């Protein structure tokens, strides 16, 4: 068998060959410390500067507004903690019920520490209730953090509209754009957010590098304290090679963004349509209109997700599931649960997330084998032949 048919790109992506190429010199001969007082280390300063320009460019930011971090999670945690540090009298945080654990579990942690957290609901298509957001705001609100696009369903939130409303009220606004950067056009010139998180390994850079955008003029307090790196906003010796890799990945993504959106959505739509047509009792989870071009989340009723994944695995097909059995906990996906997906469909949800490296023939293979897998697993299941009334 050749390489895997990798359709799990919202989990992580392959490092682009060009990215690896860019990084290698910094892992070999150019191993210096950018802070050193000798040319050998010091020469890295200009390289990092150029890299910062490129990362800034992908979101239309000024380079001075980019802080390199170790990952999306660090960026997310930093944004919230900064808001709480600079507004010590404010104890209220607003987020959503469908955030990534980097925000969701961090907020749960804060709630145990005595902070008041509002988790905004979504409707059955995963869309945010903006009225609920407005109702939740009060003088005690330190920050609102709402993801740009959901990692499980790909549903895109109206960040523009929310940001504008929050700006009017002078409330700090952060968005976790880890799934959006490099997949959809995004520009902080027009997007009214104060902070924005992005992560390298979701756009073909390696794991272990992320960035936090902090709008000029936004008060900020560092989360990781130590040396003066990143203009004293994030301590720790620069991960030079990964910073170079992230910059190259941003450059590649920007160059091919428009074509990728067209290609990926075409592939995704073809996959989705064929699976819905060939698998009875299947449904797409989440709003199909406002959605990332690379993501589809499909529930196959009366079958369990882990079983589907492991059967797909036999064909070298990699996807993921919101089923309880795959999460390491016994609870199924909090995202699909918040959307009120019925239990018959919740455990059988499969997410396919594509990248620029996927081909037509790979999609053909999934369309060829998956309906058979579903049919066979249903024949094993006591619910397979039972028609239950749908909610």
């Amino acid at each position, binding site marked *: 068998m050749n390489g895997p048919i990798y359709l799990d790109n919202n989990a992580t992506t392959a490092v682009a060959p060009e990215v690896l190429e860019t990084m290698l010199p910094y892992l070999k001969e150019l191993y210096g410390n950018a802070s050193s007082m000798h040319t050998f280390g010091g020469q890295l300063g200009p390289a990092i500067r150029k890299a910062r320009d490129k990362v800034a460019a992908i979101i239309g930011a000024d380079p001075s507004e980019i802080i390199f971090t170790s990952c999306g999670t660090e960026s997310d945690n930093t944004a919230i903690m900064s808001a709480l540090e600079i507004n010590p009298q404010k104890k209220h945080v607003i987020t959503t*019920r469908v955030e990534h654990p980097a925000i969701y579990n961090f907020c*749960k942690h804060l*709630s*145990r520490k*005595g902070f*008041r*957290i*509002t*988790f905004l*609901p979504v409707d059955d298509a995963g869309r945010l209730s903006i009225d609920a957001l407005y109702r939740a705001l009060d003088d005690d609100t330190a920050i609102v953090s709402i993801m740009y696009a959901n990692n499980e369903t790909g549903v895109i939130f109206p960040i523009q509209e929310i940001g504008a409303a929050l700006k009017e009220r002078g409330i700090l606004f952060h968005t976790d754009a880890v799934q959006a950067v490099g997949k959809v056009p995004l520009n902080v010139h027009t997007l009214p957010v104060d902070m924005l998180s992005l992560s390298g390994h979701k756009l073909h850079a390696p794991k272990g590098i992320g960035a936090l955008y902090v709008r000029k003029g936004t008060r900020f307090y560092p989360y990781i304290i130590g040396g003066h790196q990143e203009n004293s906003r994030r301590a720790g010796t620069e991960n030079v090679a990964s910073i170079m890799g992230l910059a190259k990945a941003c450059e590649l993504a920007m160059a091919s963004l428009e074509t990728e959106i067209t290609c990926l959505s075409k592939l995704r739509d073809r996959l989705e349509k064929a699976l819905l047509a060939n698998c009875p009792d299947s449904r797409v989870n989440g709003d199909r209109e406002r959605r990332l071009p690379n993501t589809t989340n499909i529930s196959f009723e*009366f*079958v*369990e*997700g*882990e*079983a589907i994944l*492991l*059967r797909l695995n*036999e064909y070298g097909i990699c996807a993921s599931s919101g*089923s*309880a*059995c*795959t999460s*390491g*906990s*016994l*609870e*199924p996906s909090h995202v699909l649960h*918040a959307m009120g997906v019925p*239990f*018959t469909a919740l*455990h059988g949800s499969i997410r396919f997330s594509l990248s620029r490296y996927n081909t037509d023939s790979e999609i053909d293979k999934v369309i060829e084998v998956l309906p058979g897998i579903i049919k066979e697993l249903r*024949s*094993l*299941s*006591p*619910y*397979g032949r039972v028609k239950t009334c749908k909610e």
Partner: protein
Amino acid sequence: MWEYTNKVRDLFLHPRNVGEIENPDAVGEVGSIICGDALKLTLKIDKETGKIIDAKFQTFGCASAIASSSALTEMVKGKTLDEALKLSNKDIADFLGGLPEEKMHCSVMGKEALEAAIADFRGETPVQEPGERVVCKCFEVTEEKLRKVIMENHLTTVEQVTNYTKAGGGCGSCIPDIEAILRDIWALKPLPVESKEPRKLTNLQKIALIQDIIERDIRPRLQADNGDIELIDVEGPKVTVALRAMCLGCPMGGITIKGIEEKLRELVSSDIVVETASK
């Protein structure tokens, strides 16, 4: 990714004895689609010899649930009912060359389906009697089942109990109860209880304490599930609250109120009664 043995993989990819026996002599059904796994076992039994001549299964669940069910049917064929009843969930796991700890509940489900089927054949009433205490409300696990699985598998920690029965793996509110059952079974030293003289609180202190517990502990948890609560009044031992948002009309509302009452009894005063405000 789970590390499954080759035997598990084999029985998952090529399960034996799939289906439903026509006119079965015994049927055992356990689990539910809500919990994420369910098993229907049908048996053909020779009434002369009391031997199981055929066994078939249908399973909704993950790879290890399917493999455990298939293993069970392979194991019981040819056995007398009494021999079959001696099989433990550990025997099923051993037959599979072992299961990941987190998946042991799949073997327990197999064992339960077998017991249910044999009880069905013998015309015994289902094991679950009315009024039996359900410890884990998320996965409907009774105290009886917990005690049985704990003893049979020599479980000593809550984590193990969750792996084997799922109990405690949902909202987690029953974890103290599971701890108590474990202590009771293994006669472990009870945790040092702060059993000094009950604090004598002034009415004002009591109200402040109740308000504080609701704000810090109870509200965030309800809000995480999209609900909310408001303290309306405290009159002697009677605490009146109002449930808001998603908690309104939620079928779990009764359980929520009971949970709040338990919490306040534990932390404030043992005579507290929680009621919802009448509309």
